[in-house]
């Protein structure tokens, strides 16, 4: 299948590959998809005290467009606020990468991964409100 130059670019030089400490309180982790379906995305965000995403990382098991979609998503997330990140739509990714119809689900998966990462971060920090001291502890280490 001929892919767009942008897909090839992200596939050949994926941005922000790697992992953040999933136990850190300022990190949100989203893992979506299933190996038996041929796509698993892990997307992580690191959020500062102002609610701004200072780092984003991904690892993806999947086809070329799944890898490109997650790479692009991390690129977009960096520097945005969590609020802005919630507004990311799969169609933005699909359009940017010119994904063919059979690959739209890759962009859906990327949106889901972003949402899941935000949810995880929110969950952790809602809980940590009650125990701020512990959060400070984690941040220092």
């Amino acid at each position: 299948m001929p892919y767009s130059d942008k897909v090839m670019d992200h596939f050949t030089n994926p941005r922000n590959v790697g992992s953040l400490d999933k136990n850190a309180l300022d990190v949100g982790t989203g893992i979506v998809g299933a190996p038996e379906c041929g796509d698993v995305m892990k997307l992580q965000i690191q959020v500062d005290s102002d609610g701004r995403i200072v780092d984003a990382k991904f690892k993806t098991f999947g086809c070329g467009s799944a890898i490109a979609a997650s790479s692009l998503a991390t690129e977009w997330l960096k520097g945005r606020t969590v609020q802005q990140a919630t507004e990311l739509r799969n169609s933005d990714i699909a359009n940017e990468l010119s994904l063919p119809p059979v690959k739209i689900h890759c962009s859906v998966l990327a949106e889901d991964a972003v949402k899941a990462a935000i949810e995880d971060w929110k969950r952790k920090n809602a809980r940590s409100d009650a125990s701020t001291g512990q959060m400070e502890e984690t941040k220092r280490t």
Partner: protein
Amino acid sequence: MALKLPIYLDHNATTPLDKRVLEAMMPYLTTDFGNAASRNHAFGWKAEAAVENAREQTAGLIGATAKDIVFTSGATESNNLAIKGAAEMYREKGNHIITDLIEHKAVIDPCKRLEQAGFQVTWLKPDRFGVVSAEQVAEAVTDKTILISIMAANNEIGTLNPVAAIGAVAKQRGVLFHCDATQAVGKIPMDVEAMGIDLMSLSAHKIYGPKGIGCLYVRRKGPRVRLTCQMDGGGHERGMRSGTLNVPGIVGLGAACVICRCEMADEAPRLTGLRDRLHQTIAAGLDYVFLNGHPTQRLPNTVNLSFAYVEGEALMMKMKDVAVSSGSACTSASLEPSYVLRAIGVSDELAHSSIRFGVGRFTTGEEVDYAAAAVVRGVNELRELSPLYEQARENRRSQAKA
């Protein structure tokens, strides 16, 4: 000699035309253009003579006589003609057909159509290597069975079936045996007499011949097999397949068969050597590599491997200088991974991670080494990206600790 890129390792999909085949065809594409059915002039006679010569050549590769060969447009048409043609002809005798779950779609879909038309089809499940045993076939035969259709070699994994033993069961039970030998012909010896085959499909483009031509072997003696034609018209090919004969194609098929007959004994071990060199070089460079298919009872040219934690299409993109195929869903229009791999019990996860390699007549050791290196590099790069591989490594570490 410098390596020429890209490298073609997808010979189960199709093969390049052998130059000797092209040479044999050329006159019939140019000066000797006659219609083989023209009985009243030299153009027609020449074409007819060429067709009959090719019929002998084709029959010679499979232990048949020339009159048993019905030329078609390829193996898909041959399979349709054999299965639907036999079912319709012998409907009075019975309505039961035996086949298996990992046949090519060109056998599965005609059988499904017959199911819709009221036939009973038994879909045998092969073992984990992809083998359908003669015992399974024997157990499935009833007094209503009119046709057994089992392939000689599987197109995705290369596993060979015990064709002669299945043929013996068919003979003993008085049931017709159709064998789709598209992948096997030219790579391993096929003999319709020794194997008890009544109907056999083959295609030229898998054996370094042209596309758009194939044939169906139709036994004329012991028993005489009759088929309801699927193409009505001028009554060509003993009435079984109407339509002006594709003379250059037929000449090409004949020439390709002669080359296979003469060179198979040398070519098969050479292909096996290249195939195993590819497999071993890859396996030496990577962990979590799994062979799909039978370890030994396999086509000399085919090796299908799953690379855990890596998706097949992504791997093909990583090694874009090497042409291969994948059982991943991402390479097909459907979202399902290979039905062949599923049927032999490969998990969906590993089916998505599968790559089929098929070496061929013109493949060199140098090309194989290049491809193996590209695979190792590609898999390693993608595993660095893979959350599943990361998890597997963590699990291994924690297990080691425990």
